[in-house]
């Protein structure tokens, strides 16, 4: 401390000079809640855009029809927004506003597309789906032109269930087992397996179907059957489920594994009692999304199962129908009544996928965040609930 420090010259501090000719700083649009002014400019410019669109499409140019009106709304609304933004701010504000409107319109377009898909299938398919016999009968002895009072898709639903059940019995243990092997055992061999599994997720589903068709039906001479379709679905689903389960198992915190091992548990006990229970919601989601993919895939069953009009319950008893195949064959027939039936089946298939999807979402919900449905019900029903 007593050492004399060498007198050094401190670097000079430069005071920023104020440029008198500089333009005044542009006040940026606030990032919080929009002010009344901004809201007025926003709503006003869109109202102007819609009015202009009406004028242009309905009165000035020969562009009638709803699609043109919406396109004109988008273009002109964005234009007016840009102009109003340019009135108060610079180029930066214009870009920001235009980007906001483009992004929002893209999101609206995507949501419209999804909703239109679901609503369109429901609208075209509700008529046959309203008849109870649609779910309790098959199509044996029913002509394509018969009314919806007779015939149904029981055989297709049963076939889909059986094929998917067999495929799941094969893929579930193998897929999750492979994922456990890749994450918990590891080693050089596991890396090879992971590479191959990831590569095979690229296998187009029709090629999986063609593979089973060539091996089982052409080379080995088995007839087309539900079993062949189930195997084709399994070949398609196995890499998907293995990969998804691998991703889920990899996010299990390493600390949990180490804690279990440090307490003296053996490795398989660690896997069985710590890793798998921790990953259970994620695994369930992976499996259910795999099922949703498998139940809707048409191309493997198109090649391997053959469309039967009657109920077949034995997987090896020859041709067996399934929901996607039923839809496909009926749409290709071109008969309006058959197409309506196909839409009914598509409606059922979509509802099935939706239900599976909701179950997957409920299972994937992490525990402990937010009250459970039961707790919420109990809270709503109790007369004097504590204020939060």
């Amino acid at each position, binding site marked *: 401390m007593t050492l004399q420090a060498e007198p050094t010259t401190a670097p000079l501090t430069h005071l920023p000079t104020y440029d008198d000719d500089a333009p005044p700083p542009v006040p940026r649009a606030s990032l919080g809640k929009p002010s009344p002014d901004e809201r007025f400019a926003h709503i006003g410019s869109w109202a102007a855009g819609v009015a202009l669109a009406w004028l242009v499409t309905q009165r000035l140019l020969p562009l009638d029809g709803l699609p043109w009106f919406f396109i004109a709304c988008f273009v002109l609304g964005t234009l007016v927004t840009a102009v109003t933004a340019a009135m108060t701010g610079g180029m930066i504000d214009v870009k920001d506003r235009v980007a906001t409107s483009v992004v929002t319109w*893209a999101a609206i377009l995507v949501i419209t597309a999804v909703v239109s898909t679901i609503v369109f299938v429901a609208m075209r398919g509700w008529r046959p789906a309203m008849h109870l016999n649609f779910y309790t009968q098959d199509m044996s002895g029913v002509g394509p032109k018969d009314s919806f009072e007779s015939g149904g898709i029981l055989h297709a639903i049963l076939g889909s269930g059986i094929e998917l059940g067999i495929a799941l019995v094969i893929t579930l243990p193998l897929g999750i087992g492979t994922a456990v092997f890749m994450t918990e055992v590891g080693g050089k061999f596991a890396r090879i397996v992971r590479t191959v599994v990831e590569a095979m997720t690229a*296998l187009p589903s*029709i090629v999986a179907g063609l593979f089973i068709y060539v091996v089982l039906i052409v080379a080995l001479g088995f007839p087309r059957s539900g079993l062949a379709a189930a195997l084709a679905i399994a070949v398609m689903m196995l890499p998907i489920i293995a990969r998804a389960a691998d991703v889920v198992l990899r996010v299990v915190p390493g600390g949990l594994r180490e804690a279990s091992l440090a307490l003296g548990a053996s490795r*398989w006990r660690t896997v069985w009692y710590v890793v798998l229970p921790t990953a259970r919601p994620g695994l369930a989601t992976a499996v259910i999304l795999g099922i949703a993919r498998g139940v*809707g895939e048409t191309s493997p069953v198109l090649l391997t199962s053959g469309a039967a009009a009657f109920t077949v319950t034995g997987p090896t008893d020859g041709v067996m129908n399934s929901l996607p195949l039923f*839809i496909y064959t009926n749409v290709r027939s071109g008969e309006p009544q058959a197409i309506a039936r196909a839409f009914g089946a598509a409606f059922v298939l979509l509802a099935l*996928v939706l239900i599976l999807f909701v179950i997957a979402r409920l299972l994937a919900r992490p525990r402990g965040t937010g009250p459970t449905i039961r707790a919420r019900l109990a809270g709503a029903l109790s007369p004097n609930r504590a204020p939060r």
Partner: protein
Amino acid sequence: MFAPLSETPESQQLTTIPTPAAVAEVRPRKISRKSTGGDAVFELGARAIGASVLVIIGGVGVFLAWQAYPTLERYGWSFFTESDWAPDKDVIGIAAVLVGTVSVALVAMSIAFPLSVLMALYISEYSPVRFRASLVALIDLMAAVPSIVYGLWGFFLIMPYAAELALWLQQNFGWIPIFDVENTNPDAAVWDTTRYVSSAFCAGIAVSMMVMPMACAVMRQVFSQTPPGEKEAALALGATRWGMITSVVLPFGRGGIIGGTMLGLGRALGETIAVVLIVSPAFDIKPRILEIGTSTVSSLIAGRFGEASTSQLSALLAAGFVLFMITLVINTLAAVVVNRSRSGAGTDA
């Protein structure tokens, strides 16, 4: 180790030294890298499962290559350059179907790419926070909708509008070769609808609905991992929301954008049933995407497997193998891009 303790005087001894008899009771855990007992069974079982899966799905790939080989050997390079698929005349080539496959996939991607980037940006940056989870669920649901449903949607709902749009494109941009439609008069009083439907363009729209959610999910995941500190820094320096996105979110998410797009492209190339429903098969090489008739590798397989003889099946398998190789290369590139980039640090986790 105990030496300092034993040297302390008797009067100060407060700690008791464990007697040798007690030490003998403690048996240290045997430490071995080799697993024993249940563990050995577990490891062996896991290895067996891994090996069997490797054999099964690796076998598919090897089988395809093995079956494709005689065809590739017989037709050589003409398999890739010949456009006609006429097994009766011993003329087989996949040039036309490859062009068709690529054009359908490119139409699909040119619709799905901007939409998925913008949708991912909307979800991660623009949407109100309370809707965010629902929007993510909506995209996941979109990915779960069966492809045949999108096929129905594209065929019955979208195709009339798509044909109208195709006519408009031809009228205004017909001088660009890809928007040309042959044998039609775009300015005719009554336009010939049949020339504009069942085209690669219509199929591409339906396929774009299938690949959009896949690409969007990857991009959203990556965008949501942008470090909040960097976003806040950009905003604190006076950037607008769009300025923050272009300077922070998009550069950070570049790997995710490229990877998601390529994953979508891989799916688009292999899509079958929506294409089979919509296009009417034709085997000529043409860039005119708005014109009726095209063919993709998967629609070729779906259309021709029924009446095929053994050698024709081998040719179909060869076509399927080429398709698989293309999607494999694209998916691998996508994985590499996502993993290499900075934003890929946590995409798997």
